[in-house]
C-alpha cells in the first residue's frame, strides 16, 4: 500500500517536472493523472489499489462516530429511567482478528458500542471478556454489531 502511495507521489513529481510549473495545483493534477495510471496498471501490483483501503478506513471512521452517538443515547436513556432494572453480565467473545492493532481497534470499538465494555483480553489474544450492561436482550444484538465491526476491520486489513 505504501509503495503505491509513494509511486503516486513520484508520478506527480514527474508531472511537475514535465510541465515546468512547481505549484500545488500542478501537483494535484499530476496526482490525479498518476492515480489514473495506477488504476490502469493495477493488475501488476500484488495488493489491491490503495484507494480502496483508504475508503475502508473512512467508512470505519463513520461507523465509529455513529456507534458513539447511539451508545451515548442508550446510556442516557438507561440512566434517566426511574427504575434501574438492568442485569449486567460478563461474557466471552472469540475474535477472528489476529494482529495487535486489529484487536486493539476492535476493543475500542466494542467499548464504544451500546452497552458493552471490554474488561480483559486473554493472553493468546483470541478471546475478549466483555461486560454487558443488560444481559437479557443485548447479547444477540451486540453479536451482530460486532460482526459488522470485525467485517469493517477485516476490510481495512485485507491486502
Amino acid at each position, binding site marked *: 500500500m505504501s509503495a503505491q502511495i509513494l509511486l503516486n507521489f513520484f508520478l506527480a513529481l514527474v508531472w511537475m517536472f514535465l510541465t515546468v510549473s512547481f505549484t500545488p495545483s500542478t501537483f494535484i493534477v499530476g496526482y490525479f493523472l498518476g492515480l489514473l495510471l495506477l488504476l490502469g496498471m493495477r493488475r501488476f501490483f500484488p495488493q489491491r489499489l490503495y484507494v480502496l483501503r483508504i475508503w475502508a478506513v473512512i467508512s470505519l471512521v463513520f461507523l465509529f462516530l455513529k456507534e458513539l452517538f447511539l451508545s451515548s443515547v442508550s*446510556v442516557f436513556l438507561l*440512566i434517566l429511567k426511574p427504575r434501574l432494572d438492568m442485569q449486567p453480565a*460478563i461474557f466471552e467473545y472469540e475474535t477472528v482478528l489476529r494482529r495487535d492493532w486489529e484487536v486493539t481497534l476492535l*476493543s*475500542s470499538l466494542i467499548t*464504544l458500542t451500546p*452497552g458493552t*465494555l471490554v474488561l*480483559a483480553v486473554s493472553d493468546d489474544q483470541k478471546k475478549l*471478556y466483555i461486560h454487558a450492561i443488560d444481559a437479557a436482550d443485548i447479547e444477540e444484538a451486540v453479536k451482530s454489531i460486532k460482526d459488522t465491526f470485525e467485517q469493517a476491520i477485516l476490510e481495512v486489513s485485507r491486502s
Partner: protein
Amino acid sequence: MTGEVIVNILTILFISLGVIFSLVTALGLVRLPDIYTRSHASSKSATLGVLGVLAGVFIYFWLAEGHFNSRLILAIVFLFITSPLSGHLIGRAAYVSGVQPAKETAHDDLKQVIAEKKRNM
C-alpha cells in the same frame, strides 16, 4: 436566515448537547450500582459530552471569528483514541484487584479465568 444566525444555532446546539451528556454522565456515576456499569457511563457519554463542547467551540471560532484552530481537532482525535482505552484499563484493574460486580450480575465468564491465573502464579 443570515449566516450569523446559523452559526449561533450550530454553536448552541453542539455545546448544549455536550453539557447535557456530561450532566447525564455525572448522574450515572451517582445512580449506577457498581464500578463496571459506572465505567459504561463515563467512557461513552463523557466522551461525547467533551466532544460536543469542543466541536461547538471549534465551530464558533472558525465561522464567527474566522480563526481556524487546528488544536481543537487534534484534541477531539486524541480524546477519541484515549477515552475507550482508559475505560477498559480502569475496568480491568478493578477486576484483577478483586472488586466484585454488583449482585444483579447474571453470569461471569471471567471469574474462573482470573482464578486459574492467580492459582498458577
